[in-house]
């Protein structure tokens, strides 16, 4: 090992002033090499396609904004925005509260808690189409769910054939799939809370509810924000259950925006309009996520 020659006074003073370690070049290079592949992947798989989409949306033969005009004038698109926003407002609080409740429950000392966690997480490991087909059979008007309702003396339900029950049906389906996945993040967040804080609360005489709302929840802000944002985005992109089961119906009640984009691109073959609608979806998601970041700051 060679002894390093100490640099002259001036250069060594400069790094000290900026508070950086001596080997600047080395660390930067290491960072670049490790992040490099991810950055290249983001460039080629996210940014380039996004710009391509914007470019396609502006290249309609009838004029640069003709595709956007067409999309905004389309009653199917208008319905899809309404239904997607309705879906978002219903599904996200439902899933997150359920995930949180399950996370709290499954971090208690219960018998076989590992087994419960696995079973609840399992649907997330299935392809969405498989889950959709399973629920499609369950929801059949002559299917098992109605059989159970009958046995309990309750009236027979139309489920996915009713324009009022179809969207809630999709909500239940995607929640069955996703709740276990989000629960895992919240379990990790709960386990991160130092035991002393909870001990201290106990000693101070706080009951379980008070402890939860005033100690646990504030400590969960970061994982909760992550789950909220990631779940919201995932729910904006729901497609497989609609394509498999309802084709956007009945009466456009489940015509979520991803399905509308898919139809525009691959049934109508109208790529400029589909790209325009994709860009509009991107703007909606960015708007919603920014609002979430404002309402739930991750740092106290």
């Amino acid at each position, binding site marked *: 090992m060679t002894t390093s020659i100490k640099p002259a006074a001036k250069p060594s003073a400069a790094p000290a002033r900026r508070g950086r370690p001596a080997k600047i070049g080395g660390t930067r290079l290491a960072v670049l090499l490790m992040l490099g592949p991810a950055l290249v992947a983001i460039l080629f798989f996210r940014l380039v396609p996004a710009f391509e989409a914007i470019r396609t949306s502006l290249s309609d033969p009838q004029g640069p904004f003709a595709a956007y005009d067409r999309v905004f004038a389309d*009653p199917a698109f208008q319905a899809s925005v309404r239904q997607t926003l309705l879906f978002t407002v219903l599904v996200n609080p439902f899933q997150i509260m359920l995930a949180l409740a399950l996370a709290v429950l499954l971090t208690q000392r219960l018998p076989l808690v590992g087994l419960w966690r696995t079973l609840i997480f399992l649907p997330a490991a299935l392809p969405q189409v498989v889950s959709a087909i399973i629920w499609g059979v369950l929801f059949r008007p002559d299917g098992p769910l109605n059989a159970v309702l009958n046995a309990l003396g309750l009236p027979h339900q139309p489920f996915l054939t*009713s324009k009022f029950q179809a969207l809630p049906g999709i909500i239940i389906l995607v929640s069955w799939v996703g709740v276990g996945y989000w629960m895992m993040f919240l379990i990790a967040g709960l386990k991160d809370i130092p035991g002393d804080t909870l001990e201290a609360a106990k000693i101070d005489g706080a009951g379980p509810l008070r402890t939860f709302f005033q100690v646990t929840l504030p400590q969960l802000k970061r994982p909760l924000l992550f789950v909220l944002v990631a779940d919201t985005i995932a729910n904006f992109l729901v497609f497989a259950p609609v394509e498999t089961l309802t084709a956007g119906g009945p009466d456009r009640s489940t015509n979520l925006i991803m399905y509308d984009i898919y139809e525009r*691109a691959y049934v109508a073959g109208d790529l400029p309009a589909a790209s325009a609608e994709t860009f509009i979806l991107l703007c909606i998601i960015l708007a919603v996520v920014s609002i979430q970041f404002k309402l739930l700051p991750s740092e106290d």
Partner: protein
Amino acid sequence: MPLLIGLTTTACFGPIPHGGGSGGGVTLQFVGAQPDGYFDKAIAAFEKANPGIKVKYVSNPASQLSQVLQARLGGKDSSIDAFTADEPKIPSMADRGFLLPLDDLKDEAGKQVSAEAVRATTFDNKLYALPLWTSTALLYYNKDLLKKAGIADPAKATDQRLSWEQLTADAKKAQAGGAQYGFAFEQPGRYYQLEPLIRSAGGGTGLSGAKNLTPAIQDRGWKKALTFYQGLFKKGITPKGIQYTQLPSLFANGKIAYFLANTPSIAIFQKNPKLKFGVAPSPTFAGGKPATPTDSWALAVSPYSRHQAEARKFISFLSLNEAGAALSGQDIARIPANKHAYAAWSQLIDAAGPELAGTSKLIADELSRTAVKRPSSIGYTDFESVVNKMIDNIGNGGDVNGSLTDGQSQLVNTLGRFGT
């Protein structure tokens, strides 16, 4: 890093085409909506007669084939050589540039294939595909369920076909006699199945104007047919919310008294030895002109294929060659468009079971006198997509007039991008 760039470049610019070529052999990729193995016999015969050409069949679910073709051919994917094309969508696909014109095969096609089938694959005076099959709808009925309810078997002669009104009454009677469902369509919620009802109620095809790009779905025939259609569900005669693929089995298992379906379902019915079924003509509205659905799948060559000559040979074999057409016909399931194969098929289906005697004459009558085609239009794919959803909606209980108005305005918007 170079590996990553290489991978992403490949991802950006599309799949690496594979078509054999090295060693003199050519492998064609043939994409279709029929299940795996459907064309094995025909492909084997073709490969035997054409050493040096191999064919690999890739199956897609029928409800997704259009979208898959749109994605792949829209992206100028050169790995598809031949594919099955849904006949009414041929004008739309030709407009999008997905079909290689086959005009030099026009004469041969005229000789080997029925005139109706050639019409179904011709657009703008150019031949864009070679027909494989045609289709028609038959009314199958469960003899035991009818007997239990004291209903006489419907006659097989086309001039004695049931009216929809009579069928509704009989279906209800069958349910009173113990059938779970009185009647079902094989393809509820689809324009293919509803067009004959609409036409027999006096309605138009739904598209008008010189180029069939002007929607017109609010005439009396549309209202009558769709109100009747909704009534079947409302009265509990027809089951709601069951996926298409599960319906033929319901009839095969004795749960439905009358079932309006095409010929491929016969294979499913014959699997249940306990089922005693009969065949009768499609019903019509009293006082209306009888109508039946028709047309089916054809074979096309991709203009982006690198083996167009071989692909044309292949599709010619399956469509224009008598042996090839017979092998791709799946015994009695498919009605061949090829004239010679059709003659052989007629004998096969009449001999396929006691209940099927005389069916070929019934089908021949329907094909020549009552068959109604779907409108030829470059906007047909969009039209069908909107109309199917609307029909489904009406079946689920949506207000008929409201749905028709909504559908009309949706169609005006969607077809607007084609001009008029």
